[in-house]
């Protein structure tokens, strides 16, 4: 298990598929987490492995990707997978905290839920 600071945000692929949310392309654009090389190694992952991301606000299974992030920082594209684990509190601003949430990431054999399954589970 590694502990990371989770941020979420836009990507080109997420943007290009955002009007096709029920497509495989969108599913593939938002269902992963980017980890630093060190964290990736520490979890003994290989590209395409699945990890479970757990925060105080929920958990979600996503695919793991290696990326040029600093150690201890992880990134999930904005979308339903990210939103399963971010902090909903807006602290009175109206804006939930989409970036900078403490998360535990661990390897898992569990399946990545489809978008519909994710919605049903809410």
């Amino acid at each position, binding site marked *: 298990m590694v502990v990371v600071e989770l941020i979420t945000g836009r990507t080109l692929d997420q943007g290009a598929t955002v009007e096709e949310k*029920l497509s495989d392309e969108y599913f593939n654009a938002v269902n992963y987490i980017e980890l630093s090389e060190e964290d990736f190694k520490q979890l003994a992952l290989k590209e395409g492995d699945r990890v479970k991301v757990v925060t105080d606000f929920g958990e979600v299974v996503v695919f793991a990707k290696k990326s040029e992030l600093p150690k201890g920082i992880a990134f999930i594209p904005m979308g339903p997978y990210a939103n399963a684990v971010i902090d909903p509190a807006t602290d009175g601003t*109206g804006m939930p905290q989409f970036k900078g949430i403490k998360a535990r990431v661990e390897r898992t054999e569990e399946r990545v839920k489809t978008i519909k399954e994710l919605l049903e589970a809410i």
Partner: protein
Amino acid sequence: MQDIICTFCGSVCDDGEYDLEKRKVKKFCKLGSSKFAEKERIKAPMIDGKEVSYEEAIEKAVEILVNAKKPLLYGWASTANEAIRVGVILAEKLGGVYDQCASVCHAPGTLAMIEEGLPGATLGSVKNRADVVIFWGSNPMEAHPRHGTRYSISAKGLLVKDRKQRKIIVVDVRPTKTAKIADMFVQIKPGYDYAIISALRAIISGNADVVPNEVGGVPKEKLVELAEIMKKAKYGAIFYGLGVTQSRGRDRNIENAIKLVQLLNRTTRWVIWPMRGHYNVVGAGEVPAWEVGYQYAIDFSRGYARFSPAEFSAVEVLLRKDCDAALIVASDPVAHFPKMAVKHLKQIPVIQIDPFPNMTTLIAKVVIPSAVYGIEAEGTVYRMDCVPLRVKKILETNYWTDEKILEEILKRVEKLRG
């Protein structure tokens, strides 16, 4: 067709060429091209998943809205001002809540503006004059792919002729694609934007001595270097993004950055502007501002507008279960809201107006498909810098526009409410 205007991101590029035969757009980026590509549509109006006529769907929508004690009318960032205006008046008539996508995007910038104002510029000013551009928590290479070539990074301006004459700086928690093409990258610890901006203000105003050797993961020398660049700029621009608005400090980060810009303007010229996301999220705030006085998080339950993001932003309304029906226009809160907020949406009747099926379609009781502005319908939109553009109708369609659907709803509501 020439001068086609893109209705995807806040850059609202207006130099597209559309090939009517191939049904393809030229010149636009990956995001813009995807916008103009054919894709799956909501085929017909639906109630509980069953296809109905526009009139039947509208009747049902009106019934839900009129009976609600507090309907939430949310979305609006991807539609035209003409539709937004009807939506705002509808919210006023219904005694509901109007909120728009900015509330989970750039609305903290509005809160900061309430505190300090917004010293800004149009993108054309930046292109012509800015010799230093800082992208702070923003990543145009992914979110606004042509921003750099058209306005900010390599744009060919009047006084600043090209990329070589312009210094690009990226401040972010991770080396983004934009950071890779920058002249300087300042990597900061997540959540320390505010402290770093305070430190820059102190250095620039002659109080460098109090600043410790490291702030938010950045060595003091680097901050001093950045401060020097800022002071020496002839005309600098800060473009901030969701990295600032959605993380620790939110509006306070921006407020602090605005104070930094105020300070810099005492000796040189600087401007600051948000990298707004959707093509008309600016209109979704400007229209209600002139119609009812506020940009977002507006409650009409007392028959007039009140503003309080802590209470009337869509996420707060949903977390407090403070709405009993929702009308979602041109947006997908089910995909973009935190899980706990989506939970309440699933429990109340939802009406959706949108050209495309999305996650909100999956939970909506009434679904009303609409025409796509900029392709199938004409309308006014505001680029991220509030420059108005009239997007065009290129293709014929049988889909109704958002404006027409909302007008029909409003007409019926007015009849019932008197």
